């Protein structure tokens, strides 16, 4: 037995699964596609079917030690080999190493004329069998069912061949994907064979976003297997597909630990926080522009790294390079920490971003470096860029529940407050309604605010809320200096 391939064992008497190797997609499928089965990959033109098939094959060969066969009825192998090179997938060398074989069923140069309807596709079946034997394949992709049907006028013959191929593949334990075009109005079964042949259906589609097309993937059917329902988003990136699975909302069964406190390394502030932020808390830093939210968050990261805790910084407000420069001015070498794998930046275009996609990016970043502290700079950018209130709420609920479960402490910056100083007696009215509304989800609020007094504008801070902590209720002065925030004395009118 080959030890390399890890297949999840049969669940509840069900079938085994094999990972597709496509980033994010195996989570959707609760482990992968059913081993030794036949799946239909359907979608409109340009939805990404061919890339999907290619990646399934390529990941199988290169990462899971499962050799593959590519049966093509459309493009010739030469074009396919050249197309996938842009993803960095080198098919020619896989062919040479006998890990990949093509069954070239693309239209031949000369026309094939039918002189009658008495023929069968047994050579096709034989060639697939032969190719599987040649490379000892465990995966087969067929692109596409439509091109095959369009080639022959006797559709019964094609159907019969598909049944034969399906039976042969199943018998030899090969896992296969076959693509099928889907037009807007059409229902699934175009040739009256798909359902019978396929054990599962994966649908790819394009939806119009605000500014660009959004790619979607959707598992329609998977016989006898568990999978996450609903439409997921995916992208075709430079090294293949990335699927952003919906992350189920977990119960708020937290690893919050009030005994373990995460400090800022800012003496007075940690004291005001009753020793720091409890592990697993999600705390919002609110305040107007230029008031020091980002600096404060950076200090939280620096302190974490000093204590051996890796961190993720989500930079939506400004470019990552600019964040690094700002940090450097305060004497914090973010670049170096990044190289050492102690700090990871996530900067992403916020155009048409969805909760799932963003969550996925955050969680993969966190997992990659084993982060214990996360900063999101900022939530307000998210809300103004693309998410509506409800989406933001959903996003925060999911994020908080996951962080709590993993004992990750998170700061999120939130831009709010009057554009200039608050007047006497109005300090707390600065809070925007959004902040109040979100406050049931978050565990704490550190409020930063400008106060205009006489000829100058002072900076003040207050711990408005911190669950499970005997935090200070007072308002304190602070200054931003080189080296970070210095908290001063109590503010008094």
């Amino acid at each position, binding site marked *: 037995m080959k030890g390399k391939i890890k297949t999840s064992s049969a669940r509840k008497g069900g079938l085994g699964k094999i990972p597709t190797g496509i980033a994010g997609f195996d989570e959707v499928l609760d482990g992968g596609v059913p081993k030794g089965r036949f799946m239909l990959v359907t979608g409109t033109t340009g939805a990404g079917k061919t890339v999907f098939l290619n990646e399934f094959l390529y990941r199988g060969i290169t990462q899971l030690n499962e050799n593959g066969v590519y049966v093509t009825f459309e493009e010739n192998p030469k074009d396919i080999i050249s197309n996938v090179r842009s993803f960095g997938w080198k098919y020619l060398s896989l062919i040479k190493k006998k890990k990949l074989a093509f069954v070239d069923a693309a239209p031949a140069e000369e026309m094939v004329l039918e002189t009658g309807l008495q*023929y*069968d596709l047994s050579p096709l079946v034989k060639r697939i069998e032969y190719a599987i034997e040649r490379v000892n394949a465990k995966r087969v992709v067929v692109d596409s069912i439509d091109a095959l049907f369009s080639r022959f006028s006797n559709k019964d013959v094609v159907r019969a061949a598909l049944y034969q191929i399906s039976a042969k593949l199943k018998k030899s334990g090969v896992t296969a994907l076959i693509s099928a075009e889907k037009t807007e109005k059409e229902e699934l079964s175009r040739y009256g064979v798909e359902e019978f042949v396929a054990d599962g259906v994966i649908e790819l589609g394009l939806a119009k976003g605000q500014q660009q097309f959004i790619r979607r993937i959707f598992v329609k059917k998977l016989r006898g297997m568990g999978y996450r329902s609903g439409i997921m988003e995916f992208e075709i990136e430079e090294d293949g597909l990335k699927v952003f699975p919906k992350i189920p909302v977990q119960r708020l069964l937290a690893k919050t630990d009030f005994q373990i406190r995460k400090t800022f390394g800012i003496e007075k502030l940690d004291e005001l926080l009753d020793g720091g932020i409890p592990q697993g808390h999600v705390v919002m830093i609110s305040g107007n522009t230029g008031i020091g939210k980002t600096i404060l968050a950076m200090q939280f990261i620096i302190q974490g790294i000093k204590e051996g805790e890796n961190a993720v910084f989500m930079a939506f407000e400004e470019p990552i390079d600019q964040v690094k420069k700002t940090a450097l001015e305060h004497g914090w070498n973010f670049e170096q920490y990044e190289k050492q794998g102690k700090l990871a930046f996530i900067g992403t275009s916020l155009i048409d971003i969805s909760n799932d996609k963003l969550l996925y990016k955050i969680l993969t970043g966190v997992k990659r470096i084993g982060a214990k502290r996360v900063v999101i700079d900022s939530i307000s950018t998210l809300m103004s860029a693309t998410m509506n209130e409800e989406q933001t709420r959903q996003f925060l609920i999911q994020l908080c529940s996951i962080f709590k479960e993993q004992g990750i402490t998170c700061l999120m910056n939130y831009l709010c407050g009057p554009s200039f100083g608050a007047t006497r007696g109005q300090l707390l009215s600065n809070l925007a309604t959004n902040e109040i509304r979100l406050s049931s989800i978050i565990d704490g609020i550190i409020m930063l605010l400008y106060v205009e007094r006489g000829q100058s504008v002072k900076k003040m801070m207050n711990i408005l809320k911190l669950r499970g902590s005997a935090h200070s209720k007072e308002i304190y002065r602070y200054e931003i200096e080189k080296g970070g925030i210095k908290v001063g004395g109590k503010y008094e009118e």
Partner: protein
Amino acid sequence: MSKKYLLKLFVTGQTPRSTLAIENLRRICEEEFPNEYELIVIDILKRPQLAEDEKILATPTVIKELPPPIRRIIGDLSDKEKVLLGLDLVGQERRQK
């Protein structure tokens, strides 16, 4: 000595359909250009690599390699007119007569 007509017939196994196709094609050749043709019968079950090289999807398939142009037809070859038309041999037949 090479013949004027070179035809390759691909079949799958020794089935009644295969036998019928071979018989049909041979009869057509004998009637139209006796002694001038060479017919090669290939069983794809025995020679799968040839099926791969020639991109054969269906059987029976006839490839006319000589005289040019190359032509391919599929079917049981029972309709002589269609076979000759498909293989672009109609003109040849008339010239002979």
